């Protein structure tokens, strides 16, 4: 049981950005993808989630054997993939509580209603865990939230929706160290043999708090190196410049 990306080629507006990317994230493992700007990190996350602006020209993405590329965005999410956004959208006038509730309701069999009492109990417990004030239940989704509040809100949704595979797109960007720790603890609490993580990041910093099982380096739209968590430290020390020497990229 894995999230498998095989020889993926994808791009936007006729420009190929991901060029033959292959990756397997088995359940129970945390994989980190690191890479310089423009290497295709965000494109990969958008393609997995199904953003319509990104066109897949060849290759496949499967989730426990299900071909994700044949599913609509919402179907992919219900199949068990969760994308924590780098820049989560504001949804004016829709309260956080109603938003998450609608997402959970969409996962219920037709005709069944979500148990509201149990829902709020769970929601409050998770918010407490993330140090989120109760006022965030009634506030409009992400509207007027600080960068850190938005990222916590992403992790809150991730916890509530209980996905099989979590893709975190630059979740550490714009976070101070305290928020980073809270977010990392949230992710760590969700680690389980039943769940896989793909953590996309530019910096090694987040990986101090979320220990990856594997680290991959993305450059020019494909994985150019894979290794253990020590690879992240090496990148931190040497920067991405070594890529230019070792792998001539077109990124």
């Amino acid at each position, binding site marked *: 049981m894995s999230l498998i990306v095989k020889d993926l080629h994808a791009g936007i507006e006729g420009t190929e950005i991901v060029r033959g990317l292959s990756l397997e994230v088995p359940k129970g493992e945390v994989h980190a993808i690191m890479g310089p700007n423009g290497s295709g990190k965000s494109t990969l996350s958008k393609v997995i*989630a*199904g953003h319509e602006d990104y066109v897949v020209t060849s290759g496949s993405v499967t989730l426990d054997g299900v071909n994700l590329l044949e599913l609509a965005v*919402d179907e992919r999410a219900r199949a068990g993939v969760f994308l924590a956004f780098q820049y989560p959208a504001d949804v*004016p*006038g829709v309260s956080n509580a109603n*938003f998450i509730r609608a997402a959970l309701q969409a996962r219920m069999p037709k005709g069944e209603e979500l148990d509201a009492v149990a829902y709020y109990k769970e929601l409050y417990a998770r918010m407490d865990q993330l140090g989120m004030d109760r006022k965030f239940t009634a506030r409009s989704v992400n509207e007027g939230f600080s960068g850190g509040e938005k990222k916590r809100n992403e992790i809150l949704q991730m916890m509530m929706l209980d996905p099989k595979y979590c893709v975190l797109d630059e979740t550490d960007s714009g976070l101070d160290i305290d928020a980073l720790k809270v977010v990392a603890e949230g992710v760590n609490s969700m680690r389980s043999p039943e769940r896989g993580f793909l953590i996309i990041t530019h910096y090694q910093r987040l990986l101090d708090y979320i220990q990856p099982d594997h680290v991959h380096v993305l450059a020019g739209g494909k994985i150019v190196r894979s290794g253990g968590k020590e690879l992240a430290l090496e990148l931190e020390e040497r920067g991405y410049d070594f890529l230019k020497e070792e792998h001539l990229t077109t990124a």
Partner: protein
Amino acid sequence: MTAILEQMSILERKPESLAGVPEWFSESRAEGWRQFLELPMPARKNEKWRFASLGNLQFEGVMVPPEAKGEGHYGAKGLEVRAARFGFVNDTLVESESHVPEGVICMPLRQALEEHSELVREHFMRQETTLGSAKFSALHRANVSTGMFIHVPAGVVVEDPIEVFHWLEGENVVAFPHTLVVVGENAKVSVVDYFQSDSKVKGSWAIAVNDLAAAEGAQLTYLALQDLCEEARMIQVNNTVVGKDATAKAFILNAGASWARQESLSRLAGTGSHSDMLSVSIGREGQEYDQRTFQHHASPHSYSDLLYKNTLYDKSRTVFSGVILVDKEAHYTDAYQTCRNLMMSGEAEANSMPGLEINADQVKCSHGSTSSSIADGELFYLEARGIPPREARQLIAQGFSVEVISRLGNEALEALVLSFASREFDRLVGMGN
């Protein structure tokens, strides 16, 4: 136009006289009829009817129906906690329930004409209709036979809302709902007018007038929930006068009718007066909402804030024309006006005409109008959480309206409006939007 006029019953037939009303009221009706005959029908070249679909002014065969019989059968349940509840079917009183505080007059206009004739006379249709529908105000004045008279004496607070149901029944009928609310110094009241109908009201009309007056320090909240069946049409003329340090909040919901035109004038008559003008319209199919507003700042340190939001599906259409006028005495005025359209279909149409005339100093004014569709990024975000596209669009559209609804600042009233809006959005999802 003359040829058509001759076929329009209500427009050519002098209203029958009413028995048992004060002489001044009979004279007022006769004067209304004279004015009606004198005033011209709206024409395309008239600026106040710019962009209007004048073809909607169809009155062929439209008549004042005979008195309705039996009990009211309203579409809305209304509020659980209320100070009073009155129901009219085609202007015939069918239900009354009232437990307002002592001293408050809350009764059908007809009864008030008997018991409080001079008080009614003092306030009845004292505001000139200036935003285009003077002819229809005159028609209303000529025909009005009842309605609600609500008078709250100084210092009295009516905690729970007063509800008035106006139900339209039958084809080619016309009703003239009238709501007159007078709030004394430091008094407080909220009133909800419901305009609804059964589904067989082809060609029928509601021509309503609402006059609202808030004296010094008073707090007045007024809601008009327009939820007529799609075959009915409506004109509503709403005049509000806000006294010194008084607050008036007026909210209009458009969820029904094939065509509805609302003219709302708020006159900030006293220093420190405050007026909120709010509206939510949800249009679908060929529905059209035509709204004309006027924020008249006649005193210094007055504040008005208008927020109208329209969500337009299918081939629905809106016209918004808003004017802010600041008199030369009205220094330190704050006046804001915003009209936003959420376009849910490429075929929907929104027309906006904001206007501003400032004659005073130290004034803060802004007006703006926008039309946009749901941002792709927003929709993607909801879908990426597993919410199907239709539900996602519905949530976003409803959220768009919520910003206005939440400005009511009253939980029960917000929930009431939201129940109408949600029902409408649910229906739209069911229709495949």
